[in-house]
């Protein structure tokens, strides 16, 4: 992707969090470094898969990009501006452009609000005009009938709830969406629908998406680029075609090897292309 200027340029990103498992009864928990120096770029319009085992730092990286977490050091340039260490006031102009869709749509939608109100609320917060009407348009965009606006989250299926989460994010017309394991709780059928929707929206709205997942099959079918994390470091990154066709790192190979393809293969359990701890 030969874009002049990437949407994100991240250099030597490091991030430490308190290790609550080693927190003494009184006093501060010791810090543990989660991200250990990551450098990469996200081209405009790319759907970038972020993959790795649990604890590899996928979600922490995502949260740093949308600045829910502040990096310990390093730069996060968003459209050429380092947002890594801005305070909340400094971040305000970028907030609308940095949206997020969550893993569990039930816990991320207010159960006491109607769908329309849920989608309209952030638009009201950002002072957009006609938020209710835009909310109904957003519902249409994600393939839900307009009357869903009057329903409550518990009246929807998992796939429909996840669409509401997507509608809420795209209604703000952001530049970037962080999608953190958004299909892992869904059935294959709803999963296929949500992935197709995301792909269409990304193309229509020229969105850049970081798609966090542990499922390489999903990443390969959705994403243009992929970043493979291993213990807080980038094991491998690049366009999906090259990373998946010629995986260079052990971690990428281990992840590929572990995918249970929907085909009968009695030798699958015995294949150890990569050593796993």
């Amino acid at each position, binding site marked *: 992707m030969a874009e002049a200027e990437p949407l994100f340029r991240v250099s030597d990103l490091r991030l430490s969090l308190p290790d609550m498992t080693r927190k003494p009864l009184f006093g501060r928990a010791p810090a543990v470094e989660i991200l250990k120096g990551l450098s990469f770029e996200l081209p405009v319009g790319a759907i970038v898969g972020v993959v790795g085992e649990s604890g590899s730092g996928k979600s922490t990286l995502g949260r740093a990009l949308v600045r829910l977490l502040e990096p310990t050091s390093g730069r996060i340039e968003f459209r050429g501006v380092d947002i890594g260490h801005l305070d909340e006031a400094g971040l305000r102009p970028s907030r609308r452009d940095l949206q997020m869709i969550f893993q569990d749509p039930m816990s991320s939608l207010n159960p006491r609000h109607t769908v329309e109100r849920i989608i309209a609320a952030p638009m009201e917060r950002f002072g957009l005009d006609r938020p209710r009407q835009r909310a109904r348009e957003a519902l249409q965009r994600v393939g839900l009938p307009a009357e869903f606006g009057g329903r409550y989250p518990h009246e929807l299926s998992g796939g429909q709830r996840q669409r509401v989460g997507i509608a809420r994010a795209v209604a703000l017309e952001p530049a970037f969406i962080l999608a953190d394991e958004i299909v892992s709780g869904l059935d*294959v059928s709803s999963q*296929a629908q949500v992935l197709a929707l995301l792909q269409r929206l990304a193309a229509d709205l020229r969105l850049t998406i970081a798609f966090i997942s542990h499922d390489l*099959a999903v990443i390969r079918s959705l994403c243009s680029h992929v970043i493979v994390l291993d213990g807080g470091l980038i094991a491998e990154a690049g366009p999906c075609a090259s990373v998946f066709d010629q995986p260079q790192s052990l971690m990428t190979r281990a992840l590929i090897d572990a995918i249970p393809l*929907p085909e009968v293969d009695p030798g699958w*359990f015995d294949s150890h292309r990569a050593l796993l701890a």
Partner: protein
Amino acid sequence: MMPDSNPVAAPGASPTLAIDGLGVAVRRGPRLLRDVTLNVNPGEVRALVGESGAGKSMIGKAVLGVLPRSIEVTSGRIELLGHDLGQLAPARRRQVVAAAASLIPQDPMTALNPSRRIGGQITDRLVLRLGWSADAARRRALELLERVHIRDPLRVMASYPHELSGGMRQRVLIAAAFAPRPQLIVADEPTTALDVTVQKQILRLIRELQAEAKTAVLFVTHDMGVVAKISQTVTVLFAGKVMESAPTEQLFSDPRHPYTRALIAATPRYTHPHEPLRPVPPELIAQLWREVESTNGEGGEHG
């Protein structure tokens, strides 16, 4: 080959679990299972696959006798090692099930008591339900923990659940499930919460242990990839009804039911990244619902 001929069953062998015409419904409410018939033989892994709400977990719960209070069996029979469970007095039924069947649950965090050490959580059932001596139970627990590749079983026995990773906890639950030498294991989405790499290790462990002990396994999953790897036979459920039962190999090489074909088509294929994902068509779902509802002839409905 017959549609549901069984690649594992020895001729004439009697199944570990035989479910015949099972109906389950919410009291005065919707039906959850409709006329489900399936067998699991010694040494066989039968996958139960379907989307959420298809009733896959309900079958396991009905077998283990842990249906929620609001849900009841309305028809059919469940035979475990030849015992017709519905005919047994509740206490006897619990005894039979506790001795013969184990559960590997989905969520390894909520399945373990957070305030108790691991060791007791494995040995309790052996000692309290099955009458093992404390010493024998402890030795068996250590043996199983070693068997599931836990490096320091003594330390893990003395640990609390929060001190272990998700993969370790799931291994502990596998050890606990196999410890009493059950003839049947109900595995209810045991790897859904895990990473792919850990999932593969866990699937391999279940496969090794059940093959060794010739345990029958009812493996509930929504993942056609996992079905292909772990099972020898598959039952596909939709709206509580069996759509298709077949040997796994045949199900993937020659899926007979349109719903089975749709489920396979909706599974992302790592090896075919450019094939568009095809969700199960809404028309098919509507048609299946009509079929399911129209064959609702049998009695037993409450309310």
